[in-house]
Structures are given as structure tokens and as C-alpha cells.
């Protein structure tokens, strides 16, 4: 493969992986934006989404897309209940809320372990084969996941921008007090925001279940990626998450293709720390505190 083609392939790989990361991270940043909670259990909702879709497709023989929709609905409901039952006392308590989500993550992961066992399960691919773009190769399954992800993100965008509920959610993210004054019932929006956020995590898990394997341990990776994306992009900023995840995907891909995986990882973390120090608000924030 000549250098140009290699770079091209690496860029394409990076964009694809970046979009996957965005899907993983957008729910996480939404939850922080609405509730100021760093949700350590984010990865476990991703994992549960993968299991729901696995069960729907392999045991109930439901079509894939339909299963993803079911996963979303179930996850939103579950998230709503969890927020209301467990996280309510921590609504204005960032640090303790974060530690509580650590406890939540442990409970969810181990319940899954007890229910499903530790062995990884495999879902059949949704599609087979590859797509050729010039000399570059994209596995079809990834292509489809990316297409679905873009679809989900567009839906999210439309929801947040053009629906009443979505705009109210954004108002809560911007400024909770003013939003309350405007008549938005904050106490309803906390569980709702949390539900949507973890619902997005579950959808990410569901979409990626056929690509990778399904086991109670698959949540840790996406959580880490979500952390990085959100640190880079700014806690609570969705446009920031878009920029950051694409940047992360590209850096990883180019780094792994031309350097080595280990070096790429170290560079990313070093860059992350510098980023946090210089611009704690994220890439798109004003350089302030």
C-alpha cells in the first residue's frame, strides 16, 4: 500500500472510530450537562444495551433495528427509575454523586455477571462483506454502524433543537435557575435527562454489539473513551464532544498506524492532561477557570 493510500485508510478508520466514540460519549456529556453528575456507570448501561439487543436478536428473533429501539426505550425507563430511586439525594452534590455512580456501576456489572456469566457471547453480524471507496476498504458492518450512529445523532440534534422538551432540556443544561423560573419542572428533567443520557449509552452498546463481543466486562472501554472525549470536548458540551471524538479517533488511528499503539496511547493522555490544565472547559470553551 503506498503512503497516500495508507494515510487515506488511516483517516477513514479514524473517522469511523471517532463516530463510534461520539456515540459512546454523547450520553455521558448530556448527563453531566443536565445534572452535573459524572456518571461512572455509563459503561454499564452500554453493556446492558448490548445484552438487551443480543437477547432480542438471538433469543426472540426480532429484527435488529427494532431491537435497538426497544433497547433505547427500556434504557430510558430504567435510567429514569435509577435516577429517581438512587441518585436523587445527590442532585446538587457533584462529588458524592460521582462516588455513588461508582457504587451503581459495581452493582450493575456484578448483577450482569451473575445473570449472564463471564464468557463473551457473540452476535451474528448484521451485514457481511466490505465496501470499497477507491483503494480504501471499510468493513460493511462498520459502515452500517456509522450510518446508524449518524442517524441517532441527527435525531438527537433535531430533538434538542426543535422540540419543546428538547429545548427545555437544553435550558436546564444552560442554567437551572433561570429554567425553573421559566416554568420548567427541574425535578422532572433530572430523571428524564439521565434516562436519555443512559439511553444513548445503551443504543451505542446495542449498535456495537454485532461488531465486538458481548460480555459483562465490555463497559470499561467505552467509559474510558467517554471520559477522554468529554474532557477534551468540555463537560456538558455536545459540539465539543463531536469535535473531540473525531479528533480522538483520528489521533488513535494515525498514531496506531504510523507509530505504535502504546506510544499513541501515551501521547493521547499527555495531551489530555495538558488540555485539562490549559483549557479545563474543553476545546470549545473560553480559556477561563
Amino acid at each position, binding site marked *: 500500500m503506498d503512503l497516500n493510500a495508507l494515510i487515506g485508510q488511516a483517516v477513514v478508520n479514524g473517522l469511523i472510530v471517532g463516530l463510534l466514540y461520539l456515540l459512546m460519549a454523547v450520553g455521558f456529556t448530556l448527563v453531566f450537562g443536565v445534572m452535573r453528575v459524572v456518571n461512572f456507570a455509563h459503561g454499564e448501561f452500554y453493556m446492558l444495551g448490548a445484552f438487551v439487543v443480543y437477547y432480542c436478536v438471538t433469543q426472540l428473533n426480532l429484527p435488529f433495528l427494532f431491537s435497538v429501539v426497544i433497547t433505547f426505550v427500556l434504557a430510558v425507563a430504567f435510567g429514569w427509575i435509577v435516577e429517581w430511586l438512587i441518585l436523587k*439525594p445527590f442532585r446538587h452534590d457533584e462529588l458524592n454523586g*460521582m462516588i455513588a455512580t*461508582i*457504587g451503581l456501576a459495581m452493582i450493575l*456489572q456484578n448483577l450482569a455477571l451473575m445473570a449472564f456469566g463471564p464468557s463473551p457471547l457473540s452476535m451474528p453480524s448484521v451485514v457481511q462483506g466490505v465496501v470499497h471507496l477507491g483503494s480504501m476498504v471499510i468493513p460493511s458492518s462498520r459502515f452500517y454502524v456509522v450510518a446508524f450512529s449518524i442517524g441517532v445523532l441527527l435525531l438527537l440534534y433535531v430533538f434538542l433543537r426543535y422540540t419543546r422538551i428538547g429545548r427545555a432540556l437544553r435550558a436546564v443544561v444552560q442554567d437551572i435557575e433561570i429554567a425553573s423560573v421559566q416554568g420548567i419542572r427541574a425535578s422532572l428533567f433530572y430523571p428524564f435527562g439521565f434516562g436519555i443520557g443512559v439511553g444513548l449509552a445503551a443504543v451505542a452498546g446495542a449498535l456495537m454489539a454485532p461488531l465486538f463481543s458481548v460480555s459483562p466486562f465490555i463497559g470499561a472501554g467505552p467509559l474510558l473513551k467517554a471520559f477522554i472525549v468529554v474532557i477534551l470536548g468540555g463537560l456538558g458540551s455536545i459540539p465539543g464532544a463531536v469535535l473531540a471524538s473525531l479528533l480522538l479517533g483520528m489521533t488513535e488511528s494515525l498514531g496506531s498506524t504510523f507509530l505504535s499503539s502504546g506510544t499513541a496511547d*501515551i501521547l493521547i493522555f499527555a495531551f489530555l492532561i495538558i488540555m485539562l490544565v490549559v483549557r479545563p472547559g474543553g476545546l470549545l470553551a473560553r480559556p477561563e477557570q
Partner: protein
Amino acid sequence: MQGATRQGYDFESATRRIAYLVLVVLCAAPFFVTNEFYVHLAVLICLNVVIVGGLALLCRTGQLSLGHGAFIGLGAYVAVIATMRGHWPFWLGAAGGALFAALVAAILGWVILRLRGVYFVLVTFAFAELVRLVMLSWSGLTGGANGIVGIPSATLLGFAFDTKMRFYGLALVTAATVIAFLYAFIRTPTGHAVDAVAENPALAEASGLSVHRIQLMAFTIGSGIAGLGGALLAHYVGFVSPESFNTGLSIAVIIMLVIGGRQSVWGPVIGPLILTPLPELFRGAVQTQHIFYGAALILILRFLPGGLASLLMRMSGDRASH
């Protein structure tokens, strides 16, 4: 709860005396027990007391670190490299490990401590991952994924701590020193400044305290203590690898501190005391154990934010938060 006269019986000071008695008995017990497994647990408890104590110091200033495991690891690796490659005596290697951890914390803290709350937590997390990756990649120095085996026992002036009983003595003394240090520290003016900073940073700053400097000092000393714990741990287990010091360790330390109690000097004692042997009760039911931890964490945060230590304090009539 009223103090002295409740049917003529001073419940609170009796509780206090019983608590101290129990503590003394627990500390002495491992010397008389023949089952080495219990001595092993006792050693681990003491080392955890040291480590959690270090985090407690930082926590008192209102910041939380998710990277404590990295500093434990830094102290461990530096001490081991010093004793095995540099042929330093053990005490010097351990001191070197602690100082190195403190130095790294000082530099890192100088830069990042102006972040507050969750931002600070996330940076410490990123830093810990970075440290782990470096430990993994720099295999010439650290042995990489294989780690370092065959670490010699700790020795002091020719006396080798190569049995569990002997090492327990060393660990106990170190743990007691750390707790005594904490106890004394919070009663000094600097200690009071720390409390002020935690309660209301803006007010503290306005009244002339440098929040940044106080937090930096706590972060440095706390991480140095963690490094010391790491050095001891390495010379006890005889083996280190990057996986021993990952985020899981940092989370375990936080769990011990939160359940033990973040406000009291006894938190770093009670947390490890209860949580270190607990897995042994659950062996064979690992998932149940972790669910128990998660549930306990949430319950304590919700109903007993001062941790189990605050319960003890209340029962022994300690109205102050320490």
C-alpha cells in the same frame, strides 16, 4: 445524646474506652495467632491504613483524587528499583519511593490544583492512566508487563522482616505513625486552615489563606504517604507489576475512605479494618461481594456521609467532626 449522667452511667466515655481497648487487642492479636493467613490479613490492613490515610489528608482539603493508585505504584517501583538495582538499603529505598511520589505530586499538583471538584478528579484519573502506560512501556526499567519478581524482604540495620509476624510489626508501626501524624496535624493551625479551605474556599481565600498552597501541601504529603505504603507493599508481596496499581486500586482506596469516614481521623482505620478482610467472607461469591460494596457505598453516602467513623464518634460523644 446527653453526656455524663444517663441513669448515672457515662455511656459515651465507656464506649470510647471500649473502642480503644478493642483497637489495642486487634493490634496485638496477630502476634499471638498461629494461623499465618490472619497475620497476612493484618499486614494488608495496616498497609491499607497507610494508603487510605494519605488520601484522607487530601480529602480533608475538599479535593478527591482518582489517581492515588498511581502514587502507590510510583513509590513501589522506585523503592524496588533502588533496592534491587541500586543496592540501596531498604529504608533508603522506601524513603526514596515516598519522596519521589511526593515530588511528582508536587509538580502535578502545582499545575492542576486550580481545578476544582470533578475536573480535578478527571485529571488525576488521566494522570494515573498515563503513569500506568509508562510503567508498561518502559520495560527496560520497570520490566514492563512482566513486572519485577523476587523483591527481597525489607531489612533494617541487618534485621530482616522476612516472616509475616516481623513484617506485621513494621507495618503496624508505620500505620500507627501515619494515624498519629494525622491526629496531630489536624490540631495544628495548618490543620485548621485545611478545614477552613474545605468548608468554604472562597471565604478562606478572602481571609488570607492560600487555598492552592494548602491543597498542594496536602496532595504532596498524602501522595508521599501513599508512595511509602507502596514501597512497603512491594517488599512484602515480593512482586510488582503495572496492573497492581491501576484505577481499580484507586477506586478501592476511595471506597475504604468513604465507608470508613472522610471527616474523622479514624476513617482511614475503620475503612481498611472492615473492608480488607471482607472479601474473605465472600470468597466463592465474588459478585455478591461487589454488589455489597456498591450498595454499602451508596447507603453510606446517603445516610451516613461521615462514614462509619462518624457513627463511632457520635456514640462516644464526640460532637466535633474529628
